[in-house]
C-alpha cells in the first residue's frame, strides 16, 4: 500500500489509505482524547470529544471517523478545538453523578482522566442533574446507568466483536439507558466474557465480584497466563496484600495473543484459589481414614514407597514445563498417560505427513487469506480462540471455512460452513484434496465446490480444535488435513491445545492409554479421574499417591495425598498456541509442586526416540454407523471446563445445565430419555434442537460425573455411540 503524508500539529506524519486521522495521530504519539473510540471496535463517532480542526474545512471534525487524505493539515490543539472539546466534556459531566469517591472505576476512569486534562474548569449549566436511577444487576455484572455516558462501546463489543448482542439501549434521548433484554443477563444470553466491562470507559459496567472490594491504584498488578484452557490467555491479576481481588484482560492494551479478551473462566475463575474445597494439608490413609500429616512425613513415606518401583503417572495437562520436567525426572516419562493423549494423536497424524511433530503458531492465521477450521464447539472449549477467529473475519476480512458435525457460533461469520455426519468428515476433506489435483474436479455438491474454489491459490491456515480433538477419528482427520495442506503447498496447520500445556506434555512424555500402564504405584498429578479419564478404572497398585489442589473424588482411592498450587500461584512456563508463555506468581502458595518433587530422588531416564512412520496418504475414517444409531458428543459447558464452576463460586453463579440436545426427528417429542451405553445408562432431559443434523446429539454437562461412566470412555468423548432406550 502506498503511504502518503499528512500534517498533524505541524508534524509530518505517514498515513496509509483507509486510516483515520486518530490512528495516524496515535501512531505518531499525538494524543487526541476519546470516549467512544476504542482500538478494538468499529468507530462510531458518538461522543464528539475527539474534535479536531482541518485546514480548509468549515467545521470541526471527529478524528476517530475522519479518513486521512493526502496533504491534509490537521490541528488538535487550537483554541477553537479546546473550547469545543471542553464544551463536549461539560455536557457529559453535567449529567454524571459525583460518585468518584465510591466508584470502582475511579483511578482508571477515562472520564476522570479526559475531564481532568481537557475539561472545563466550571459549568454554566443550571438544570438539575439527570437521575436515571436505573441499576441492573446480573449475577456477575452490574450496570449503574447514572454513570453511563452512552458511548456504546459495550454494545459494539458485545454485538459485533463477541457476536452476542446481549446489551442494548432502551428508551431514547434523555432517558436512554443500557440494559440486556428484560434487564436479565442470563435470559439475554450473556456468556460472561467480561469484555463489555473491560471496554466501558467509566464505572457504569461493573464486575460485581470486585464491587467495593479495592481501589485500582493500590493493588499490585501481575501479568500472568490463564491456565484454565489451551488458549493460554494473558491476563492481569490484581492483588492487595497477597490476596487476589480481580482479574482484568485490558483489551487493546494487553500485548498477549489474546489481546486482552478473556472468557468467563479467566475473568471470574480466579476464586478457585480460595475454594472451600482446597486441600490444606497432606493426608495419609490409616485404616479406613485419612489423617493429616506433615509434608516432611509425606515426603518420607513417598520416597520409601516409590523406591525402585515403576510408576503409573496420570498427568493433567495444565502443568508447567518446570513441573513436567521434574515429574519426568522423578517418575519417568514412558509409563505415562494424560488427558493430552488425543492432542498427541492429532500431532502424530500431522507428523505422519510432514515428518515433524510440530504445528504452526496461531499467528499463521494473520498471514493467511483463508482460515480453514476443522472443529466443533471451539467456542466452549477455548472461547477466546473462537473470539480471535471471529475477529479475523470481522476486523481483518479473512475468509473462514468451517468443517464439523455440529453447529457453531463461528458459522455466523463463516464464508462457508460444511456440517456433515462425523463419519463423513474425512470424505469431505478428500473432496478438497481432489480439487487440488484436478482443477475441473466436482464433488457433486455446489457448496463444497465453492468452498474448494475459495482455497485455490490462496494462503490457507488450517485450524484443528474443539471437541473434534476427542473424536476417535482425530488422528485420521489430522493426517488428512496435513495431506491436503501438503498438496496445497501454501498452508499451515495449527492444533488448538485443549489444556494450557497439552503441547508441553506431548513433547516431554511418551503417552499411553491407561490400560497399557504396567507399574505398581499410581501417581496422579493435578487430575480428576472422572473428568480427565472418564470411564477408566485406576490400575490395581500397591500404593496410590494423589497430588491435587482440591478435595477430589480420587482422594477416596488414595493412600497418600499431597496438596499443590493452582494456576495463579505458579511461576513457570507453558507451551502455548502462539509461543511459550510465562506464568508469574500472583499469590504465594503454601505448597509448591516443583519444590516438593525436587526433594525426591531422580531416576535414570531411558526414553527412546519415538519412531515416526511417514505415510504420505490421507487418513480413513474408523467410524461406521449403522442405521438408526446416533453419534454423541460429550460437551462440557464453557463454565464447567476444567471443573471451574465446581471450584469457583463466581463462575458457579452462571453455570450451564446438563441436557441432551437432539434433533426433533430423533427426539420424537420426548422430554426425557434414557441413554444406554455399554456399561450403564443415564436418564436425561431433552432439548429439541433443529440446528443439529439428524443422527447427531450433544450431551451437555457442567461436570463429568460418575454416572457418565457407562457411556463414555477415555480418550474419545466425542462421536461415540450409544442407544436411546425406547420407552
Amino acid at each position, binding site marked *: 500500500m502506498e503511504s502518503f503524508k499528512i500534517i498533524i500539529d505541524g508534524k509530518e506524519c505517514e498515513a496509509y489509505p483507509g486510516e483515520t486521522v486518530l490512528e495516524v495521530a496515535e501512531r505518531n504519539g499525538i494524543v487526541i482524547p476519546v470516549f467512544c473510540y476504542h482500538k478494538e471496535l468499529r468507530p462510531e463517532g458518538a461522543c464528539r470529544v475527539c474534535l479536531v480542526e482541518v485546514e480548509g474545512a468549515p467545521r470541526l471534525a471527529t478524528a476517530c471517523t475522519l479518513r486521512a487524505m493526502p496533504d491534509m493539515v490537521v490541528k488538535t490543539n487550537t483554541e477553537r478545538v479546546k473550547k469545543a472539546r471542553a464544551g463536549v466534556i461539560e455536557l457529559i459531566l453535567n449529567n454524571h453523578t459525583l460518585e468518584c469517591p465510591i466508584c470502582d472505576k475511579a483511578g482508571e476512569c477515562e472520564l476522570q482522566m479526559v475531564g481532568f486534562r481537557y475539561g472545563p474548569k466550571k459549568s454554566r449549566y443550571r438544570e438539575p442533574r439527570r437521575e436515571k436511577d436505573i441499576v441492573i444487576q446480573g449475577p456477575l455484572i452490574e450496570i449503574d446507568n447514572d454513570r453511563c455516558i452512552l458511548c456504546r462501546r459495550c454494545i459494539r463489543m458485545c*454485538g459485533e466483536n463477541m457476536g452476542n*448482542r*446481549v*446489551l442494548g*439501549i*432502551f*428508551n*431514547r434521548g434523555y432517558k436512554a439507558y443500557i440494559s440486556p*433484554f*428484560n434487564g436479565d443477563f442470563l435470559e439475554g444470553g450473556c456468556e460472561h466474557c467480561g469484555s463489555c466491562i473491560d471496554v466501558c470507559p467509566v464505572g457504569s459496567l461493573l464486575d460485581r465480584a470486585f464491587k467495593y472490594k479495592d481501589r485500582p491504584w493500590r493493588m499490585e498488578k501481575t501479568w500472568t497466563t490463564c491456565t484454565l484452557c489451551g488458549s493460554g490467555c494473558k491476563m492481569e491479576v490484581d492483588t492487595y496484600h497477597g490476596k487476589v481481588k480481580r482479574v482484568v484482560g485490558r483489551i487493546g492494551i494487553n500485548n498477549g495473543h489474546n489481546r486482552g479478551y478473556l472468557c468467563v473462566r479467566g475473568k471470574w475463575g480466579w476464586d478457585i484459589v480460595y475454594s472451600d474445597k482446597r486441600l490444606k494439608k497432606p493426608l495419609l490413609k490409616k485404616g479406613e481414614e485419612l489423617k493429616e500429616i506433615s509434608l516432611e512425613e509425606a515426603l518420607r513415606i513417598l520416597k520409601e514407597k516409590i523406591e525402585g518401583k515403576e510408576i503409573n503417572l496420570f498427568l493433567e495437562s495444565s502443568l508447567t514445563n518446570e513441573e513436567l520436567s521434574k515429574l519426568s525426572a522423578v517418575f519417568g516419562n514412558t509409563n505415562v498417560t494424560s488427558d493430552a493423549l488425543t492432542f498427541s494423536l492429532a500431532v502424530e497424524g500431522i507428523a505422519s505427513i510432514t515428518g515433524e511433530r510440530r504445528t504452526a503458531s496461531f499467528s499463521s492465521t494473520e498471514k493467511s487469506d483463508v482460515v480453514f477450521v476443522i472443529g466443533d464447539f471451539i467456542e466452549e472449549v477455548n472461547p477466546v480462540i473462537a473470539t480471535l477467529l471471529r475477529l479475523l473475519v470481522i476486523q481483518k476480512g479473512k475468509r473462514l471455512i468451517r468443517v464439523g458435525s455440529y453447529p457453531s457460533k463461528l458459522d455466523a461469520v463463516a464464508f462457508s460452513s460444511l456440517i456433515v455426519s462425523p463419519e463423513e468428515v474425512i470424505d469431505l476433506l478428500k473432496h478438497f484434496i481432489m480439487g487440488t489435483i484436478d482443477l475441473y474436479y466436482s464433488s457433486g455438491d455446489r457448496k463444497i465446490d465453492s468452498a474448494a474454489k475459495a482455497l485455490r491459490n490462496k494462503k490457507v491456515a488450517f485450524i484443528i480444535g474443539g471437541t473434534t480433538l476427542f473424536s476417535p477419528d482425530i488422528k485420521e482427520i489430522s493426517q488428512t488435513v496435513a495431506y491436503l495442506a501438503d498438496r496445497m503447498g501454501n498452508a499451515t496447520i495449527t492444533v488448538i491445545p485443549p489444556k494450557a500445556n497439552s503441547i508441553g506434555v506431548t513433547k516431554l512424555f511418551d503417552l499411553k492409554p491407561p490400560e497399557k500402564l504396567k507399574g505398581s504405584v499410581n501417581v496422579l498429578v493435578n487430575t480428576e479421574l472422572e473428568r480427565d479419564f472418564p470411564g477408566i478404572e485406576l490400575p490395581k497398585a500397591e500404593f496410590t499417591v494423589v497430588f491435587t489442589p482440591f478435595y477430589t473424588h480420587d482422594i477416596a482411592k488414595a493412600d497418600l495425598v499431597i496438596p499443590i498450587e493452582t494456576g495463579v500461584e505458579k511461576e513457570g512456563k507453558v507451551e502455548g498456541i502462539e509461543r511459550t508463555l510465562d506464568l508469574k506468581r500472583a499469590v504465594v502458595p503454601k505448597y509448591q509442586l516443583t519444590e516438593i518433587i525436587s526433594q525426591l530422588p531422580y531416576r535414570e531416564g531411558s526414553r527412546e526416540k519415538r519412531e515416526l512412520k511417514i505415510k504420505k496418504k490421507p487418513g480413513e475414517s474408523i467410524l461406521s454407523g449403522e442405521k438408526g444409531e446416533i453419534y454423541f458428543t460429550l460437551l462440557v459447558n464453557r463454565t464447567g471446563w476444567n471443573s471451574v464452576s465446581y471450584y469457583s463460586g463466581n463462575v458457579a453463579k452462571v453455570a450451564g445445565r446438563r441436557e441432551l440436545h437432539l434433533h426433533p426427528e430423533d427426539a420424537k417429542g420426548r422430554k426425557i430419555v434414557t441413554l444406554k451405553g455399554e456399561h450403564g445408562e443415564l436418564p436425561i432431559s431433552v432439548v429439541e434442537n433443529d440446528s443439529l443434523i439428524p443422527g447427531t446429539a450433544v450431551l451437555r454437562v457442567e461436570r463429568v460425573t460418575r454416572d457418565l461412566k457407562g457411556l463414555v470412555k477415555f480418550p474419545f468423548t466425542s462421536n461415540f455411540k450409544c442407544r436411546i432406550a425406547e420407552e
Partner: protein
Amino acid sequence: MTLEEFRLEVKKLKNSGKYPSRKSYLLPALWIAEKNFPQINSEMIKIIAEELEIPLVEVEEVARFYAMFHTERKGNFVIRVCTNLSCMLNGGEEILKEFCRLLGISPGETTPDGMFTVESYECMGLCDGAPAVTVNEERFSKVKVEDVPKILKKFGWKG
C-alpha cells in the same frame, strides 16, 4: 388474543413475503402486539425474536424506542393530546390539563379502572386542526376545553 395466536399471526406476517428482509417485519410484528394486548411484554418480545431470528435485546430496543408502543400497561383507550408548537399555541396544554383533571391522573398515567391513558404528545401531523387529540385511532380537531367531557363520554366515561 392469546400468545399462541399471536405467534401464528407473526408467522403469517413473516410468510407474507411483503418485505425484502427479516428485520423489516419487526415493526409490523410489534404493531400486532400493540393492538391486541394492553402492553408489549417480554413474552411477546421473545416470540417475535424467535420467529424473526432477531436478537432479543434488539426487539426490546425497538419496542421501547417508539413512543407509540407501550411496554408499560396502557388503558383501553389511549388519549393523546398534542402539545407541540401549533397545538400549544392554540391551547393544547389546557386541553391536556382538562383531560387530566377530569380523570384525576397526570400525563403518562392510566386510570385505576384501566379505561383511559392520557399522554402528552408531540406533533401528530394534524396541525391544521390544532389543537388536536386522538383517542386510539380516532381523531378530534380544533378541540375546545368544553369538548373534553363529550369526548370522554363517547368512550364510556361515567364521571
